[in-house]
C-alpha cells in the first residue's frame, strides 16, 4: 500500500509539473485582454482539448494531494494509519467532485 501510494505520488507530481506551467501561462495570457467570463468561456466551452487538459489535471491533483495529506495525518495527528487513509480518500473524492463540477461548468 505505502509503496503504491509513493509511486502514484511521484508519477502524478511528474504529470502535474507541465500541467501547472501550462495553467499559469494560460492565466497570464488570459488576463491580457481583461478578465471576463464571456472571454474565458469562449475559449473553453466545447473544447475537447481544454476538457482533457483540466480533466487530467483534476485527476492528478485528486490522487496527489490526499497521499500527502495521509502522511501528515498519520504523523502529526493521533489518527491511526487506517483512519488517516480513509479520511484522505474522502478528501480525494471531494477534490475529484469539485474538479469535475468546475470542468463541467467551463467546458460543457
Amino acid at each position: 500500500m505505502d509503496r503504491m501510494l509513493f509511486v502514484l505520488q511521484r508519477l502524478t507530481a511528474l504529470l502535474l509539473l507541465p500541467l501547472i506551467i501550462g495553467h499559469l501561462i494560460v492565466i497570464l495570457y488570459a488576463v491580457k485582454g481583461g478578465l471576463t467570463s464571456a472571454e474565458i468561456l469562449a475559449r473553453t466551452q466545447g473544447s475537447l482539448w481544454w476538457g482533457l487538459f483540466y480533466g487530467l489535471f483534476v485527476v492528478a491533483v485528486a490522487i496527489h494531494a490526499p497521499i500527502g495529506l495521509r502522511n501528515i495525518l498519520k504523523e502529526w495527528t493521533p489518527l491511526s494509519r487506517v483512519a488517516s487513509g480513509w479520511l484522505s480518500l474522502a478528501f480525494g473524492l471531494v477534490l475529484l467532485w469539485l474538479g469535475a463540477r468546475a470542468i463541467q461548468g467551463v467546458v460543457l
Partner: protein
Amino acid sequence: MSTLKVKIWRGEEDGEFQSFEVPARENQTILDVVTEVQRQQEPGLSYRFACRVGVCGSCAMTVNGKPRWTCRTHINAVAKDGEITIEPLRNMPVIKDLTCDMTDFFQKWQKAGGTFKGTVTRKDKVVTIPPSSPKRQKADAGIECINCAVCYAACDTVNWDSEYLGPAALNRAWTLVNDERVGNQKEVLDKAIGDNGCSSCHSQGNCTASCPVGLSPSQSIHGLKRMSLLSFLGTEV
C-alpha cells in the same frame, strides 16, 4: 581542580534529572563521566557500554539534546559552560536511567528483511566479488553500521510514526539488496519499500548528520526509493 556540572536522567519515562559534580579532567569522554558518577557517587545508576572504543554501539545516549556515542564524545566537544545533560536515547522506551529498551529497534531490522540469507553452502566454492563493482561499492558504503541506534533516535519520522522502520534497518536492507551473495533480494526489497518502509522517509538527513561512523542512511534510503520507482516502471535496477 575545576568541576563539571552533570545532570543525569534518573528513573523511567516519568523520572527526573539528578545533578552531580565531577572533577573536570584533561582527557575525558561522556562515558568516562557517567562511569565516574556510578563508581564514586551513585552506584545505582544504570547505563550500557562494552568496548569503550566506538565498536560495539552500546553506549549511545542523548547528550545536551543530541544523540551521540558517549565513549567517543569528548567532554570539550559538547560541554556548555561546564555543564552537561545526559539522557537516554529518544524514540525507545526507557527501562531505567540511561538504558532504553531496544527491542523494537532490532525487530524492525527483521521487518526490513535484515537477516542474511545466502545462496551457497560451506561446501560450495567461494564466489569472487570484485570490490570495485558498482553494486559492491554501494553495499560497502553502508556495512560499517555498529547498530548504535543514534540515527534512529535522531529521526523525527520515527518520533512521529512509531511504526516507521527507521534509518538503520533500511540502511541494512540497502546493503543486502546490493550484495550479490544474498539469495532473497526481491524479498528484502519488497519489505524495505513496503508498508512503513522507505517511502515514509522525509529525506532531511538527520540520521546522516548524526551517524557517528559517518554512514549515510538517508543516501541508502534514497537508493531504495529509486529502486521502488524504477522497479514499478519495469526498469532493471
